[in-house]
């Protein structure tokens, strides 16, 4: 009888030990992986790229390489902290908030003269997620605007683009600069995050 109780006790402890072991193993694996969502509370919105060009100390970056938009001397790059940019730009013409379902993040959309950008939130700070042109009053730093042609784009950026239907994209590792053409003319210029460059539908 006593022997049976010992067997039962040992079995229970063994099962619990295995269970704890599995949990710890799973935890170790989870911590190794980036981008796990905390879904039980304090969720994280879409994460930004961890690559170069990301100044998260509240300063607008100095000498920047790669693709970024410049407006009246203000540099706006993907994954840049939004607050100093917004302060420099002043009050937007329009501001729109789009909370995701179940508040899994919040898109904040700021519209200025000629362009609009969206931010994402990470660690309680907002960063630039994407920027696109509203009209042809603004250009890229390389001189491309709406109504430009593919030849103009290639002359400015080279022929090392990725084509997806009528979209032509260039990547600098942090940002994707893409142009959509219709009837031979640029109808869309967009800077976007590398993880977020997807077509609708």
């Amino acid at each position, binding site marked *: 009888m006593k022997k049976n109780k010992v067997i039962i006790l040992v079995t229970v402890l063994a099962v619990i030990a295995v269970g704890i072991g599995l949990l710890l193993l799973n935890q170790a694996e989870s911590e190794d992986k980036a981008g796990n*969502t905390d879904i039980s509370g304090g969720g994280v919105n879409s994460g930004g790229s961890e690559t170069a060009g990301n100044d998260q100390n509240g300063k607008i970056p100095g000498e920047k390489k790669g693709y970024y938009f410049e407006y009246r001397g203000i540099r706006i790059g993907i994954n840049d902290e939004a607050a100093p940019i917004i302060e420099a730009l002043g009050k937007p013409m329009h501001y729109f908030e789009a909370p995701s379902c179940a508040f899994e993040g919040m898109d904040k959309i700021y519209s200025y003269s000629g362009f609009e950008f969206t931010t994402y939130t990470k660690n309680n700070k907002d960063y630039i997620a994407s920027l696109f042109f509203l009209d042809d009053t603004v250009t890229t730093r390389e001189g491309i605007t709406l109504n430009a042609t593919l030849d103009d784009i290639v002359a400015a950026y080279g022929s090392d683009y990725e084509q997806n239907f009528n979209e032509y994209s260039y990547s600098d590792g942090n940002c994707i600069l893409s142009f959509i053409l219709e009837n031979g003319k640029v109808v869309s210029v967009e800077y976007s995050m590398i993880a977020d460059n997807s077509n609708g539908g």
Partner: protein
Amino acid sequence: MVKKAIKITITIMITAALLILLQNLLMPKYMTEILEGALISEYYREENKDHDVIFIGDCEVYENFSPITLWQEYGITSFIRGSAQQLIWQSYYLLEETLMYEKPKIVVFNVLSMKYDTPQKEAYNRMALDGMPLSVPKLKSIKASMMEDEKFITYIFPILRYHSRWSELSAEDFKYLFRKDKVTHNGYLMRVDVKPVTSIPQPKKLANYRFSDICYEYLDRMTRLCRENGIELVLIKAPTLYPHWYDEWDKQIEEYAAENGLLYINFLEYTDEIGIDYQTDTYDAGLHLNLSGAEKLTRYFGKILAEQFDLPDRRNDEGLSRIWAAKAERYALEMERQYAELEELGYLKAFNTRRDEDE
């Protein structure tokens, strides 16, 4: 020998029970915030699973239609099997699973999810899947939904995913360990607050407007499943102003509906007829309707359902009347509670705690 076997069996059962208890403790409860996580599981608590209409889809169904209004105005019974950013394959498998419990006359599917052809976020997967009991459709849905870094086993044994919550356990986790409150009204998540539309962002141009093959595949499967079961499938697009619903997308759905003999209603084209006022009928500046908007839309759609599909008015059924009277009472109480909270705080607590964390 037999006694030994019995003892071992009892030991295993007790261990399993303890692990299940631990799992229930560690899993998020979705009772005081992120209520959207509690939506899917509420269906299984319905005593009378005999609905004329089942809605499936994303927040554009569970925020925009009121089953209580549908009953009160037309005697039509319904349930909304919606979840946050529900993807089309999740909708399909949820429908397949629902048909294991009942066979509605009509299934209403909101087509916005046709724009998503890949898994989007683990959090949304969890909200769609964790509330489902184990079943073959659930397993298939998990497989179709998983992000690259997710593990299948964590959906079978959620304790493997939520074990790290041990440090975040709160009173809510213990209070709702064995039984949760209902947060919806037959799947409708009520919001009485108002945030008028001021401006809507300009829609971006897309490189390709065609919906993906995988989305069409699941839409085909949904169509076939309904046809095989003698169910009318109705496609809808809710009258929400953002995200943008492109004309090119609308045309595809129109064509699909015409080819397959389905009714498709884009409610964006009928907002005046419905009587939607985007200054009073939305709680988030045009993304979703609030209670006022949902009831208007439901009244409009209910008339179509009743007339076009000859749905009987079941308000004369004593048993059903009793059940729905209780539902209506709870609905009215929730409305009163929300209005009172809005007046006291200026916002609804359950839907604003995470917003405060992010700001």
